[in-house]
């Protein structure tokens, strides 16, 4: 599911909310900005992944990992602080300035870590606030 960064969030049939903005809803058909992010930001994202929001009953496999098309989708395994989980069916939320909330798929961790995705600066600042 692709959404352009910083557009009103409207996943799961909900009405667009101008205060909730999408971040990191990538697919293989759209280019995305690339750059390097610090380990601290990646760790912050990973921590948020362990507080999943809006879990769904389907696994979204990364569009940037080749799998067997005949096999079920595979989630992206992560580990932090001795805990393990798999990414690909939930979101994270980050509170920003002026009442903004950023909604990202939890695969954003993989997109940033492995694919070089560079989210908008205001999102990165909100993460570290």
């Amino acid at each position: 599911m692709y959404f352009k960064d910083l557009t009103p969030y409207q996943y799961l049939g909900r009405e667009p909310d101008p205060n909730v903005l999408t971040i990191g809803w990538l697919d293989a058909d759209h280019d995305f900005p690339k750059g390097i992010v610090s380990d601290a930001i990646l760790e912050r994202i990973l921590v948020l992944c362990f507080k999943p929001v809006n879990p769904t009953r389907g696994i979204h496999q990364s569009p940037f990992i080749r799998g067997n098309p005949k096999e079920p989708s595979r989630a992206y395994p992560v580990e932090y602080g001795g805990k393990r989980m798999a990414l690909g069916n939930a979101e994270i939320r980050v509170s920003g300035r002026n009442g903004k909330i950023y909604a990202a798929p939890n695969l954003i961790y993989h997109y940033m870590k492995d694919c070089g995705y560079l989210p908008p600066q205001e999102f990165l600042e909100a993460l570290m606030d």
Partner: protein
Amino acid sequence: MKTWLLKYCWLLSWLSFAANALPSITPIYDVRTHLTSMGYDKHSVSAITYDSVSALLGTGRKTRGSADRAAFGKSVEFLAAETGMNPNILSGHGELIVDNASPITIVPNGTSLTVWTEHGNTISDALGNAIETGQPITLEQFPEAAGARSYLPGSVVPDYTLSPPFNPDLNIMGNPTTVSTPTPLSQLLKRGMGNVNWAACLYVK
């Protein structure tokens, strides 16, 4: 109230006719669209759809469902007895695995299938819980349920795959049927099951 009851009785009669007429009429029947066209409140349509189809095809409480089960064998009872799980609710991660062609299956006699979103869409874990516990389902609370529909016996449906409810973990409630390995819908639907609810996504891989 009287008007509502008349509409409901008329609806059940119509559904009975539709079921008996199968397969001479198109087997795919979107109950929700029909109910909406009758003037039902869109927020209560999903719940009515579930109740109507359950009443028509049976969940063990209705005469019609019991008759279906007697006519079509005991596979459902065997399944439930062996696993202790409710065979009428299928829970887990769901998707349609499309390689070169889109796989399909046919809903067996005495069984209907209710899916709770549009083909290709996802459902929240919370909607899955509402299905599992029989809570009222409204579009106001679960907007992703738009496009929910029931397929009557003989309907051609996508052969969705149900995967285990872990990795990532889901919050499963009640005692629905889950699987330990990815299993196609065609292996989960049997004859005479009554109404079966798919409490999983319809995501297309």
